[in-house]
């Protein structure tokens, strides 16, 4: 089946079975490799993208259900104000170890800050609970979100 998808502001055409999850359209058909496969069943968040601004696990979203929705991926997020602030905060305290899950972490964090500019720790925990970091960089992910939200002294402790 042919589908026209609005990905990162560009309409892209693909010819794939209707059940193919968006993740495999992005990675296998469109060459957008930032979204990662971690579990394939929506448990780890490594494949998180934004669909009309809302965070979604792209491994769970069949291409046939996307329609005209606007899809944004980690490759695009730096061109948004919140996304750019998050990327800078991530680098400021060097959040990552292996880094494999971080695209999904940033996408979830970005969706959080869009709907809640100053989240408290409980709200951060709740919004990020679906994103696994096997290396255990959670303290720094929390701190980076607080830095990006302007809630933590920049250059403060890299907790």
């Amino acid at each position, binding site marked *: 089946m042919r589908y026209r998808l609005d990905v990162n502001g560009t309409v892209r055409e693909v010819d*794939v*079975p209707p059940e*193919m*999850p968006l*993740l*495999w359209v992005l*990675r*296998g*058909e469109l*060459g*957008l*490799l*930032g*979204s*990662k*496969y*971690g*579990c*394939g*069943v929506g*448990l*780890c968040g*490594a494949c998180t993208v934004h669909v009309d601004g809302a965070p979604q696990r792209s491994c769970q979203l069949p291409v046939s259900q996307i329609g005209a929705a606007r899809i944004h991926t*980690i*490759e695009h*997020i*730096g061109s948004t104000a919140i996304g750019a602030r*998050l*990327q800078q905060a*991530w*680098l400021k305290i*060097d*959040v*990552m*170890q*292996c*880094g*494999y*899950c*971080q*695209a999904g972490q*940033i996408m979830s964090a970005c969706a959080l800050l869009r709907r809640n500019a100053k989240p408290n720790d409980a709200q*951060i*925990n*709740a919004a*990020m*609970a679906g994103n*696994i*970091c*096997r*290396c*255990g*960089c*959670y*303290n*720094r*992910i*929390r701190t980076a979100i607080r830095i990006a939200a302007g809630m933590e002294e920049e250059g403060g402790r*890299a*907790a």
Partner: protein
Amino acid sequence: MLREELRAGINRRTVLKASLLAGGGLALDVLTPFPSALGATDQEGARAAQLSAFVSIAPDGTVTIMSKDPEIGQGIKTSLPMIVADELDCDWSQVRIAQADLDQKRYGEQYAGGSTATPRDWMPMRQTGAAARAMLMQAAANQWRVEAAQLTTAKGRIYHAASGRSVGYGEVASAAAAVPPPDLSAVPLKRPEQFTIIGRPVVGIDSARIVKGQPIFGIDTRLPGMLYAVYEVAPAHGGRLIKADIEAAKQSPGVRHVVPIVGNGDADSGLADGVAIVATNWWLANEARAKLKVDWDLSASKGHSSSVYQAKADAAIAAGAGADLRVDGDPSGKLAAAARRVAARYDYPFIAHAPMEPQNCTARYADGKLEIWAPSQTPQRGMDQLKKVFGFEPAAVTLHLTRAGGGFGRRLMNDYMVQVVAIAKAIPGVPIQLMWSREDDIRRDYYRPGGWHSFEAGISAKGELIAFTDHFVTFGDGKNTARAAGFNPAMPPAGLIEHLRYSQSMMPTVVTTGAMRAPGSNALCFVSQSFLDEVALAAGTDLPHLMLTLLGERREIAPPGGGVPFDTGRARDVIEKVVQTSDWAHKPHDPGRAKGFAFYFCHRGYFAEVVEASVRGSAIAVHKVWVAGDIGSQIVNPMGAENQVRGAVIDGLAQAFAGQAIEFVDGAVQQSNFNDFPLARMPATPEIEVAWVKSGKPPTGLGEPVLPPVIPALTNAIFAATGARIRSLPVRLKSA
């Protein structure tokens, strides 16, 4: 001189090779005759010097340093080049880092495991940087007709104070290529207070690419015409392929090839029997698996069930002490004479590594040559496996290292590399990327093996620990233990008391086992520090004070059979440090809330940790973890080091109480994904406070030694909070 100290410096047979960089500049190579490199001739070593010199300095002053080891998230791609750059005395902004291909003749050992890179490479990296600096200074001295001793350097420039002249490294780099390389063992090194890069927080070299989602991991490898593969294996460990009906799978959308592969029956070299499905998109390949009809011979898997293993362990413990591994003094006599005896059994399950990036590898086979893109902790072992399984000579194989999305010991094994090569050989000329599903990854691991321990301790009337025994039940063929299923005869309190017995029984398994972050120690620390907590309380003291008493005077204790000695003074210092930072003497007032302590020494690192946790019903909350560690005189990159510490604490806590256990029924793994093999998540993350004890010893590694103590520190805290002694992992509390 100790063997490891010898290893810590440049070998006297090491050859420094300088040459002119293509386009001008200095190319410097350090050719170290590691065992695998003994066959290398000078000519071979120099062959590619201008393409991939270990350190090169371009005319514009750009310094390129090869990262030789695999990067798996431990930060080595940043920290080793920091060491070179500091002794070179350049500015970090001048430095570029390139990932080296596998070539141990050029780079020495290329390995990520055992927390070995820092102790192994600390001195060679310093000497290499210092040698390059000396050659640049000599080139400037020749140009200015002054003595090199009159020159100084800073941030990539050479200064002659007497004449006020200065020159950038790049401007003399080509001339430096003609300077005779200095004697590495005599090249002057900085004093620690002169370091400008080592010891400063430096952001990871790939971090800026990671936050943008740029393709740098194994699964991001893309080649023209590449196809994607899955590899279906037997549903149970020990299974063999009988026959496969592949016709329906072949007709599945996007599928290009279906390739049954008969392995070699050797789990260690990694070619399990299987059926590869190769398609234009990985998801299409994976979907086609449902259409395979494969007959498997599962007769060897029968009886390899967790319940059977448990029953065999019970029987082995009931049968007596097993075979002696270490007997000091008269443990039986002293136990019999003890005023008080404490006995307990402990056990822990098989667990999976589950790195976030599933096992994967990309390969292209054409005209007898192989090119491989691998996330691997042990690329040389992979090369050896390819020779063993397929007969590939190293000269026919080019092995590129990709960044790996986590390792934890899983990528020591390269089974996925052997599999993709089997597939690529069947489809010459077409690049193949094999990726496992998460379910494949959980079910086909080389697991941390489960184990059982039966302890007994004797306490004197004065409250001293006078005898200690442990009967360990593990897996093995009766002669040798299975991979990573062995005991450590130096496990404390061995060496600290006079009368002690460690013994062992084993049972066979068809399950593949292997090293998991802090192998051995991750389990032995839990059982021994938990049981010693019981002993301490029975003796009227607490674990930190029992440990301090046992440690006694500052001294080094050599383990039986050689190896890294245990320094009781360093152990004492980290224990005293964490007792202080955690305010150990101050007990939380809230009911159900308490602190627990544990100490361990492994991978050359000394760590004492305190966990403060509370228990309500069956729910455990970890509030804070204090870590005190000694990994020597110098933390190379504090930015990465503190992250490693926190990550290891979170990893250990997840092993303890997230519910991790791999279980078998007739060789079939019962878990499949993160629903039934849960990993740590953010809401359970405690505050983690890190304190370093900087002993004067050479710097050592950090990937592993932090992890083991946090598990018994938690279980000891749970006991202090509730009176429930945790003797089995994972922690599963009954609701009150």
